[in-house]
């Protein structure tokens, strides 16, 4: 922080493009009071969060059962895995124009971009979780009377849970990261929107405020999920 302030103040880097931490903090206060483009700052934060959480939750609700099924049925796995491998490297941003074409510029479009990306991670992790259940564990279950549906619910699902949680953690991280990309789809509110709008009008300090807020909230989300993970799958890695 000090280094940053010193470098900027001494004029090594133009203050037009790099404000000092203190200036950013001051700008943040201003934004808190006056809002950005007519909306208070917490409304922007809330908009971004809402899109992220809805997209991510939907991805989890659809992705986990789907992954469980595909992991168990070899035919489905063979059918879908190539598609996952093919789709995952494509940056979500590339899908934005396509999504505008299909669904217009409403909330659904933005949420669908988030949904799609986190869905892939959650599903692939769930499949990996199912497949990594040791055969001895499954057999132990069989010999204790857990067959078919019972095996699935009481043995495979809990055994796969550590991997599923990893998928959820990845999915949540990528959901939040994509907020900026998703909000390129003509939003009026949101941190991503704020950054893009501010950069268009050279409101550099606002860009920084937005970036830093994204970083902090992302970190908080990550910490929350990591804590849930540590509690829920406490046996992992032991």
């Amino acid at each position, binding site marked *: 922080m000090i280094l940053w302030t010193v470098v900027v103040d001494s004029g090594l880097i133009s203050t037009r493009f790099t404000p000092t931490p203190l200036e950013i903090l001051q700008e943040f206060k201003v934004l808190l009071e006056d809002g950005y483009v007519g909306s208070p700052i917490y409304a922007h934060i809330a908009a971004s969060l809402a899109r992220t959480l809805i997209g991510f939750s939907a991805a989890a609700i659809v992705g986990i059962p789907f992954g469980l099924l595909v992991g168990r049925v070899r035919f489905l796995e063979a059918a879908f895995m190539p598609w996952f491998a093919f789709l995952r490297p494509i940056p979500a941003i590339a899908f934005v124009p396509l999504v505008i074409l299909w669904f217009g510029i409403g909330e659904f479009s933005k949420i669908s971009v988030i949904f799609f990306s986190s869905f892939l991670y959650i599903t692939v992790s769930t499949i990996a979780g199912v497949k990594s259940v040791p055969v001895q*564990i499954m057999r132990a279950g*069989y010999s204790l009377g*857990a*067959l078919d549906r019972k095996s699935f619910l009481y043995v495979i699902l809990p*055994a796969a849970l550590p991997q599923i949680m990893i998928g959820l953690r990845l999915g949540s991280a990528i959901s939040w990261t994509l907020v900026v990309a998703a909000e390129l789809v003509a939003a009026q509110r949101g941190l991503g929107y704020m950054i893009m709008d501010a950069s268009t009008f050279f409101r550099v300090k606002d860009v920084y405020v937005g970036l830093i807020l994204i970083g902090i909230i992302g970190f908080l989300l990550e910490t929350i999920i990591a804590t849930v993970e540590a509690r829920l799958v406490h046996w992992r890695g032991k």
Partner: protein
Amino acid sequence: MGNIEISGLTHQYVDTNGQLITAIDNVSLSVSQGRFTSIVGPSGCGKTTLLNIVAGFIPASRGAVLINGKGISGPGPDRGVVFQSYALFDWLTVRENIEFGPRMAGVGAVERSERADRFLGMIGLRQFEHRYPYELSGGMKQRVAIARALANEPEILLMDEPFASLDAQTRELMQEELLKIWEATGKTVLFITHSIDEAIYLSSDVAVMSFRPGRLKQMFNVSLPYPRAEYSIRTDRRFLELKVAIHESVREEIAKQSGTSDEAA
């Protein structure tokens, strides 16, 4: 109740090179109710394959396994299994692991709890009932695994080298523990091991299997009396004579094992 009748059991499979491998060939073996039978043999003799077929995990290519006169159609709660790797459910406590079988069978909560109490007492781990498997030592884990299998009240217990992962002292203690538990519950046991000492100490019969294709080479009856908790039995003359005889029989098979890399299947 609890009779195992293995007749003409054969298991073949095609390996990665496309060759037909016969793991076990025409094995016939009876284990009467309440008897403790061990199977020994060199690595690759198919003894684990045999156990897996009896457990119902893999199908036989030919032959049959009859339990109380009826054929098996997959794994089931009538045959409890104890694995070398314990295979405990990491997400459940010791008590929950033990209660798992009865829970699957729909046993009521009160009776489940009583059964768990009984078996926790039998293995001496009552203070650990709310711990998780990762908090336990190897010997403790295996005790839980045995209790878990027994709590489901199977007639038959199948054990696949259950003590192989334990250090020598724990292993000896576990052998004594197992005998006590067996004497108290009277199950029919089929036990796989590499240790001839262990086999003789525990069993009423020891079967020697030949190297691949695995056949029943020789059957030894262990006429030593039960209970055998005393260490002195391991140095009893009859024990040692049996040990020499079985060792020789297995030794012949091990010799074959090291020289077969160029032989045709």
